[in-house]
């Protein structure tokens, strides 16, 4: 087990190295010059050239890469071209909103989707099952921004229950923190509820046809115990996989929700950095996302051990 853990963690290094080289080269090949963006609309070519020089963008690519990777190895992700702030500090500011939103969303989605999926599997073909499938189709089909604006209109503007936009850090109090997270999490969770519920339904349906379920029922176990202890427990591996992937996607892919609710998270930072060609920030954020993906995958693999005793590493 420890050897497995160590091997997986060591395997992260080449992954990150490949990501680093790939992102660095891709950014330099993409059209766009950060110096022109920084200089502003009224700047002349001469001013842009001065800024390029001061940012070190006129250095050969290999030199630029060497400097950057050297700094990364020392734990320094560099300084944003725009904000004169270290990339680590910028990411630090944006990490909490993204993590809070992702965790709230996934907790909400799991809390709703798993019971719904189990119930739908249990009443396979019944009205609940059909309602759930209908909801799933709706959840997959409705664009996140449409749902976001609808919820804002109803809950915030018409009823005045929750704020329209923004994020409050936990340090500013649990109340404001939660109030600002409810609508975005609800908006984001719909698609994950649809996804997780469908996977749960399919897995549990399959498990319910197994012999051990028939045996459990024959032994006279109550139905809820059959569903939770026998069917759900055996159907957990694909569900956990989907939840893990969902969490990974949430961390890097909540930009639309972050925009609709003006949440200063990593998604918006990434898009802003890409639009502004802020190379050090993009590189730093992508590296961070890679670390997240690797760690989440590792966590999923470890969860398999707990969920399925037949799995051994």
């Amino acid at each position: 087990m420890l050897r497995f853990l160590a091997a997986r963690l060591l395997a992260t290094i080449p992954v990150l190295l490949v990501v680093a080289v790939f992102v660095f080269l891709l950014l330099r090949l993409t059209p766009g010059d950060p110096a022109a963006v920084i200089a502003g609309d009224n700047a002349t070519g001469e001013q842009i050239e001065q800024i390029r020089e001061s940012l070190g963008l006129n250095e050969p690519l290999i030199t630029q890469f060497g400097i950057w990777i050297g700094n990364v190895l020392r734990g320094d992700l560099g300084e944003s071209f725009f904000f004169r702030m270290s990339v680590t500090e910028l990411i630090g500011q944006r990490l909490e909103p993204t993590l809070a939103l992702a965790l709230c969303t996934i907790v909400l989605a799991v809390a709703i989707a798993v019971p719904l999926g189990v119930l739908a599997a249990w009443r396979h073909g019944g009205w609940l099952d059909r309602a759930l499938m209908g909801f799933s189709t709706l959840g997959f089909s409705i664009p996140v921004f449409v749902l976001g604006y609808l919820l804002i209109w109803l809950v915030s503007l018409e009823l005045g229950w929750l704020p329209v936009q923004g994020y409050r850090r936990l340090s500013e109090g649990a109340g404001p923190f939660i109030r600002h997270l409810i609508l975005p999490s609800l908006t984001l969770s719909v698609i994950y509820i649809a996804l997780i519920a469908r996977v749960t339904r399919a897995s549990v349906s399959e498990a319910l046809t197994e012999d051990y379920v028939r045996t459990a029922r024959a032994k006279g176990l109550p139905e809820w115990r059959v569903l939770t202890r026998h069917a759900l427990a055996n159907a957990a591996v694909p569900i956990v996989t989907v939840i893990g992937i969902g969490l990974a996607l949430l961390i890097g892919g909540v930009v639309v929700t972050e925009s609709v609710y003006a949440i200063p998270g990593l998604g918006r930072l990434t898009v802003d950095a890409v639009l502004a060609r802020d190379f050090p920030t993009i590189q730093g954020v992508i590296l961070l996302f890679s670390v997240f993906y690797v760690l989440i995958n590792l966590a999923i693999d470890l969860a398999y051990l707990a969920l399925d005793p037949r799995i051994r590493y």
Partner: protein
Amino acid sequence: MIRSALLALVAAAFGLAAPAWSQQKVLRIVPHSNLTVLDPIWTTAYITRNHGYQIYDTLFGLDVTGKVQPQMVAKVEVSSDRKTWTFTLRDGLEFHDGKPVTSEDVIASLERWARRDGMGEMLMSFSAGLQAVNARTFRLTLKEPYGLVLESLGKPSSNVPFIMPRRVARTPADRQIDDFTGSGPFIFKRDEWKPGERVVYVKNPRYRPRSEAPSGTAGAKVAKVDRIEWVIIKDPQTQANALAAGEVDVVEAPAHESYPVFRKNPDIQIVETNPLGFNAILRFNHLHPPFDNVKVRRAAMAAINQAPILRAQVGLPDMYRTCFSIFPCGTEFATEVGMDLVARPDLKRARQLLKESGYDGTPVVLMHPTDLAVIAKLPVVTAQLLRQAGFKVDMQSMDWQTLVSRRAKKDRPSAGGWNAFMTVWANVDNLNPITLQAVGASCDKAWFGWPCDAQLEKLRDAFGRASDASERRRVAAQIQARAMEIVTHVPVGEYNFPVAARKTVKGFVIGYFFVPWNIEK
């Protein structure tokens, strides 16, 4: 005792315990863009200019009638030969750190500004030197009389000659400053700055405003709120929702589609703080075919019809207007001299001119920024008009930052260069032919597109030397005529983005852009 301690704990946990500043008057503004660069001399971005106006002061301001008025300066003396200008600063001016503003600070600030700004550079080219006479008095000595001394020092838009402490202003012009001490009406709270989320300023208790009424960038800059928060919201619908819910007080530049919604809301007012608005232009690349040929540029000019382009872009008839001048309509130098083709667009004539030009069907690469809503529709209609005139148009879609990077390239269009693009300028930058960059024709040193015309440059120089207003008007008209003769660019009309605000907000200053002083809530 235990009960109150517990209550305090619960209140803190649920955010009920108010922060120290919550009793203060806080003005929450959604600015027109995210603040990224903090040095207003290093970049020409308008958002950084606005940031600068909050924390720095200027020697002179420009009032809403276009007159330069003293701001930090108390007195100006000009020698009879107009070559020696002596300025005395107002008494009691202090930086945020309590240190007095001195002549040395002013000189260092002007020198740094002049290394980055075209108008500053021109002023310094006439200068024989800047000397401190004493702590509050400094002298500008000119090699020969220059007609735009006060206009330069009171330049209202990017780059603005903001006054910084000498220790800051001595930062090389190609490096950004790290210290944001100013002497303006507000203080930048760097410790509360969260890029992409929030920018915070607090009232400067040391600031001594002038006694005149505020107007443009001149007059009394009285901070009437304790704290200003710029809340960065990029999505136009979210901006509108936040304003409707009262979560923000002001949206500086809403999307045009939001105004009809605001007009129906009894709690929201629409305030025009910048009546001059913005001017859209079509810019040609003079280096490469087909627009290296003036006859082809004239044919394109004849095809451009402002009204349908503006209608498509803005939509709201009260927020756009045609303007047949390179200078903002209604201002001192506005004239229709030389604007025949612009004022009377004619596709038949355009086709004829194109035929006479010998245009060989070379595709015109017109860059189209799809992500910048304020100009995204301009190229779409323009491309259609050019096609109707006989041009082969290759409209290439890209994001604005790619366009900004690409327009700086002088390569051939087939090798990553370009032929034409469209943009908008704040009209405050177009008030005279020195700040109006589109008419600069100094070849390699000119603004993107690089027109090259000695006669036009000579006229701009003559404008700088003109000693009185009537002569300046005469030269400005000649500049317009020559610029349109060689077709440096095509003006496409003017439009506005009025401020939207809660009705509880009062005291907006009318001028050239949104300024935060005098506003109360």
